[in-house]
């Protein structure tokens, strides 16, 4: 088909109507903005490419070109989503894009030519309907983006240099650090919808303390010099990504601790590097997922899911732990798969449960094991048990 520029834009907008309506519905049902942000990114990328690239380069567009062009649009949409931190879950977002793309193909090849006899003759233009769409679409987009922007928490930027803490974040906000931004004395979060990104926290008793807060994101934070825990979350639901935590070698110090959150949405810790401390990453009475983390040199346990927690422990690397590499305890249910545990050493206390085991299931806990790489065996104590697929 040989589209005119107007035809491309009008066809694009017509094909975006249903996905946009679905995104509105999803946003309303989920109470989240990401469906609309995703739809806006997808439509925006398409319109921008139509206007700047496709029209110039493609005087005629064969049917097969829809596939590579769709992949290009997908790539740019993903880039846009990452750039603007749209919190869209990957799989639903991909399905949404794929469904929208497919709908656009069906409309371009079948639906619109059936609805409008001169559709192909007119290079994809939709007559009065198209003109109405072109008029309404920018206004709608601006309205939605305006509402979305107005609903966003404020952003606070921390400049390079040392900022005296502790900082208390007691309302929704985004705290973004410039390169070299350091907070001395810790951060305490006491509100929902808080994001902390690119901040180094030095000193204090606890590096970042999260209390009674949901939808918290700690992204690319670095903790060092805290006298006890690196990150401590109580009665909270949060995501911690790409962090670095150096814990002190004192009894009771934990790299990341998520506790007392059984009734809240699951928390996630991924791609973090935790060094030292008694326990590297630990949960008490919480729903958690620990993925792709690296935990080294802990004095008590590398990763622990305890006290009736439910946890997924996947693709982690635990090295040089004393006593236990991965610990599932106190009636917790743990799915432990594809982890690598090595260099675990025997605790000199002589406690048989701490004899340098790769994985331990303890006190009524149930641990499902699948494809873990262990250089020391897994062991169960006091009604702890293992299940294997």
């Amino acid at each position, binding site marked *: 088909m040989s589209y005119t520029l107007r035809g491309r834009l009008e066809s694009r907008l017509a094909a975006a109507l249903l996905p946009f309506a679905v995104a509105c519905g999803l946003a309303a049902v989920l109470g989240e903005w990401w469906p609309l942000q995703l739809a806006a990114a997808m439509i925006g990328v398409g319109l921008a490419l139509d206007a700047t690239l496709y029209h110039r380069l493609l*005087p005629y567009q064969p049917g097969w070109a829809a596939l590579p062009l769709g992949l290009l649009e997908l790539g740019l949409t993903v880039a846009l989503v990452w750039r603007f931190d749209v919190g869209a879950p990957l799989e639903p977002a991909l399905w949404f894009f794929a469904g929208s793309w497919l709908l656009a193909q069906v409309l371009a090849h079948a639906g619109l030519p059936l609805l409008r006899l001169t559709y192909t003759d007119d290079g994809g233009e939709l007559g009065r309907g198209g003109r109405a769409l072109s008029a309404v679409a920018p206004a709608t987009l601006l309205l939605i983006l305006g509402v979305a922007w107005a609903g966003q928490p404020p952003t606070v930027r921390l400049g390079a240099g040392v900022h005296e803490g502790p900082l208390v974040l007691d309302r929704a906000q985004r705290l973004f650090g410039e390169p070299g931004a350091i907070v001395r004395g810790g951060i305490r979060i006491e509100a929902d919808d808080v994001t902390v990104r690119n901040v180094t926290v030095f000193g204090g008793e606890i590096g970042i303390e999260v209390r009674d807060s949901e939808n918290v994101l700690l992204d690319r934070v670095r903790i060092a010099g805290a006298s006890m825990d690196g990150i401590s979350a109580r009665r909270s639901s949060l995501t911690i990504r790409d962090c670095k935590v150096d814990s002190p070698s004192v009894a009771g110090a934990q790299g990341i601790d998520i506790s007392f959150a059984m009734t809240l949405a699951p928390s996630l810790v991924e791609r973090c590097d935790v060094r030292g401390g008694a326990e590297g990453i630990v949960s008490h009475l919480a729903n958690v997922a620990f993925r792709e983390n690296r935990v080294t040199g802990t004095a008590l346990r590398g990763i622990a899911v305890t006290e009736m927690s439910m946890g997924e422990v996947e693709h982690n690397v635990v090295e040089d732990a004393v006593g236990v590499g991965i610990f599932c305890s106190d009636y917790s249910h743990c799915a432990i798969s594809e982890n690598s545990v090595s260099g675990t050493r025997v605790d000199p206390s002589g406690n048989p449960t701490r004899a340098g085991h790769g994985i331990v299931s303890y006190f009524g806990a149930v641990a499902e094991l699948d494809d873990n790489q262990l250089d020391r065996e897994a062991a169960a104590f006091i009604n702890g048990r293992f299940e294997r697929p």
Partner: protein
Amino acid sequence: MTPRCAIVGAGLGGFVAYAMLRHGGLEPGEIAVFGEDPDPAAAWRVRAAAIRQRRMRSESDGHCFPTTFPGLAAREAARRRTLSPLVLSVCDRYRPSVEEFLRHVDELRDRCRWDESFREARIERVRGVTGGFELDGHAVVRHALLALGHPGLALPTELEADARVVHAYEPHEYGSKVAVIGAGMAAATEWRNALDAGAEVVSVRRREPARRPLNVPRPLFSKRGLASFRAAPRPRRVELLRDFSAPSYPPGREWDAPLERAAREGRFSVRPAVNGADQIICATGFRRGFRHDPLLSRLVEEHGLETEERWIVLADDCTVPELSGGGRTLALAGVPSQWAYPAADTLVGMKYASRRFLQLVQRCPTR
């Protein structure tokens, strides 16, 4: 019921227009189709058989249905329960078979009740009268579409009396030494046919043929390419139309390989003149220009229509400006409407003219 619209010409162009009017809600009684054979594919069938055509040059959209979708590829895919026609179609490689094409013509002929509107009559004169057009004493209608087809086969004048000559579009067999004059689609088909029949073939051509998948570049089938064509000054527009009319056939190994093989065997050559052949096949297409068509020639003369060389100057919607408006419409479809749509002699082109004609009929308060 008195017909409100007339289609003069009952070939494929008239048939496409009729299907379009029916799709637009007109009843068979509201349309009169004038022609000499009730089979809309009659003339085309003879020509296709003469050149042993097996596949269409057109693609999935080259059909007579009023809506673009579903095209022939989708229909064949559904009928044969295979995705291959659709895959070929998205790659612009789908060429419907002649059999598939004729099947859909027969199917559509029944479905749109073509025979109810068909009137066996040869219209030789169309005259503008108050509020409409008088069709050679057969009817007076407000809206008329002239789908007259090609005005006869073209033969080089110097060969008209030569007993060895046959036109490619007339039934014929092949001699042992065959000269094929021309370099378009029919010529390319005849080179292969004659070689397959064991003949020695000489291609006589004045210029190298253009190699393009369709009659004209693809953008010219839609508003995008048409906009620049129509914006061109008249001399340039004429030049472009001449270029588009130059012989061409599709690129591809299926065309080239048999010729290369035959050339290596000494059975195929290109020469500037006919020399020593025992059969001369003129794949020289059709006569060109409105002057070869008595009806159009008379129409131009009687109503002082504007012309440019061999083309009647039409509005962008394929209507004759001097005879349209004020509640009446005279439009051309098929090759005489090239001034408005360069690919007018294709099925897509015929549909283009028909859609505009339908819009004008629908907009007319009295129809």
